[in-house]
């Protein structure tokens, strides 16, 4: 007893319990993530900002500062302006389509039916399948000669073989195609968001609305949608940011064609900066999105906060 008491009485080293301090332990746990973000996001980001203000190409690696000249150049370029417009059409088109599909998918999956669990599992597939693989499958469906969509439309007598649409070869149809494929990839995510939101609504509120005389549409648009709006907006912000910066579907399906009809900012930045080697202009194109997205995210997060009051 005496020995133990003496041992405890001795002042412990300052460092002996250092890991018990929340500040120290927390910093230790968080530091890998911070290092990762700094090294792989922060540094390239700052580098890109510098490139966009310089005359750097892979053929003449000059770090000469040129101010905003690169930005003025790209804004004066009609291809870039077309690309900017395409990006908005592509992003909002596919998000809206994805949200509609997601809402109806969620409503369907909320009703009990045989095999619901299987359908719930399968519906996540578009999200889980590697984008390259899925896009190749879509490419076959939209193929000018072997399109299964055209085959069906012809078989149903809706169109004739001579008037079969060339899905990826016509500018407007090609844009529709990339929007559909992107919406198809996004809608499982939207379903998950809607399901999470709807199941979180207290049953009492829905019952109250029913007793108060609200029918299906009123319940959906005056009660359910406003109540899940905050979570849907968060999902939408993610969707928009990812789609705005995405280039994979366009790259795999249309290569930006025909005649830049489906070229989007991410794709254009990649083409100019990496493929053509004009790093300065590529960086300028890529960073052109940044203030836009920043404003977009701010506005949406503002909306959420107002909802919560």
């Amino acid at each position, binding site marked *: 007893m005496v020995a133990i008491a003496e041992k405890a009485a001795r002042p412990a080293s300052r460092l002996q319990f250092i890991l018990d301090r929340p500040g120290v332990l927390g910093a230790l746990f968080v530091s890998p993530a911070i290092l990762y973000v700094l090294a792989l996001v922060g540094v390239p980001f700052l580098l890109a900002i510098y490139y966009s203000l310089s005359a750097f190409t892979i053929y003449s690696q000059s770090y000469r500062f040129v101010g905003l000249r690169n930005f003025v150049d790209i804004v004066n370029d009609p291809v870039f302006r077309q690309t900017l417009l395409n990006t908005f059409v592509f992003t909002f088109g596919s998000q809206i389509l994805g949200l509609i599909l997601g809402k109806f998918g969620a409503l369907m999956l909320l009703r009990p039916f045989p095999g619901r669990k299987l359908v719930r599992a399968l519906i996540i597939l578009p999200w889980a399948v590697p984008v390259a693989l899925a896009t190749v499958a879509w490419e076959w469906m939209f193929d000018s000669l072997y399109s299964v969509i055209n085959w069906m439309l012809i078989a149903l007598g809706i169109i004739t073989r001579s008037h079969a649409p060339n899905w990826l070869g016509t500018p407007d149809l090609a844009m529709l195609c990339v929007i559909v494929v992107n919406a198809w990839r996004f809608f499982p995510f939207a379903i998950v968001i809607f399901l999470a939101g709807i199941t979180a609504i207290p049953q*009492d*509120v829905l019952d109250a*609305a029913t*007793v*108060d005389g609200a*029918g299906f549409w009123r319940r959906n648009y005056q009660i359910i949608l406003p109540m899940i709006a905050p979570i849907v907006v968060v999902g939408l912000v993610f969707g928009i940011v990812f789609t705005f910066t995405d280039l994979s579907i366009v790259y795999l399906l249309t290569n930006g064609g025909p005649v830049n009809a489906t070229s989007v900012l991410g794709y254009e930045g990649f083409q100019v900066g990496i493929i053509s080697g004009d790093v300065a202009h590529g960086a300028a194109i890529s960073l052109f999105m940044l203030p836009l997205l920043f404003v977009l995210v701010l506005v949406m997060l503002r909306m959420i906060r107002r909802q919560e009051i």
Partner: protein
Amino acid sequence: MSAVLTSEIVKTFANVHAVNGISLAVPDGEFMVLLGPSGCGKTTFLRIICGLERQTAGDVMIGGSVVNDIPPRARGVAMMFQSYGLYPHYKIRDNIAFPLRTQRVPRAEIEKRVEWASQLLSIGHLLDRRPRQLSGGERQRVALARALVREPTVLLLDEPLSNLDAKLRASARNEIKQFQQRVGTTTIYVTHDQVEAMGMGDRIAVIDRGMVRQVGTPTEIYDDPADRFVATFVGTPPMNLVAWNRGHVGFRPENFLPRDLIADSAVTEFSFRVDRSEYLGSERIVYGVLDGCDAAHEITAKLPPAHVAEESIRPGEWHSFAVRNSALCYFDYDGKRTNRH
């Protein structure tokens, strides 16, 4: 005329009989309380009246017509839910106006009715707030206003006080009861709390395992229970039961008194061993066993402390206790009330 009349309502969920043949008539303007332990089917029964559940068998009549195939919104019922079910994204004004908007009531009329309902419940100053900015008691009043604004034939309340703290509950109980008397709306009130039931109900329907055990005024339910379940479910502490002639005889703790406190001569005497006693200020609860009974079978007596000094009843002592014969209730072997002694 009966505002609500149900006949032989049965509701089965996957082989479980939640409601097992309830026939009940609620006259116009009555405050009817459905009292029962949790899981007895009382809420399911209320939801069937409301139209949120479809009964497996039986008929529901509201205001004289069968409403089995009529959706909730057309039944003329309003329901107030346990957690109120206020719409969090609407201001209080819009919450109260919602049932009128769905019926396409003209705007001016809506304003008038919202004004009327908010005056009635004195929530006029809250109209421009949102539900989350309100206290529990205020939310409850808003929910009541929303239920009443349509002037329903029947008002259905599903445990409306269970989300309030004990102090608020007492005042809210009083408020609802007074309010119902003033407006005169037929009300069906579901609760598992016998104090609420006794204090508020014009009549009480005691429900157990999906069946009505007894319908009666609070006095009838308490003094004249129809069976052993009602006798032991209502009253704190519950009625004492002693084996008797293959059945039971029951007596309320407050009727079980020291022999010398009862002037009457028509009494039944028991020898009572005191085990412990609790002093609760206005009363003293004494726990013990009867001579000749199972020692695990605890009997309680509720004594007026002014008449019984602490020193006179000590643990371990045997005392002569008695019950007036008129206060004894006899039950059959199957729990039904009987006059056979």
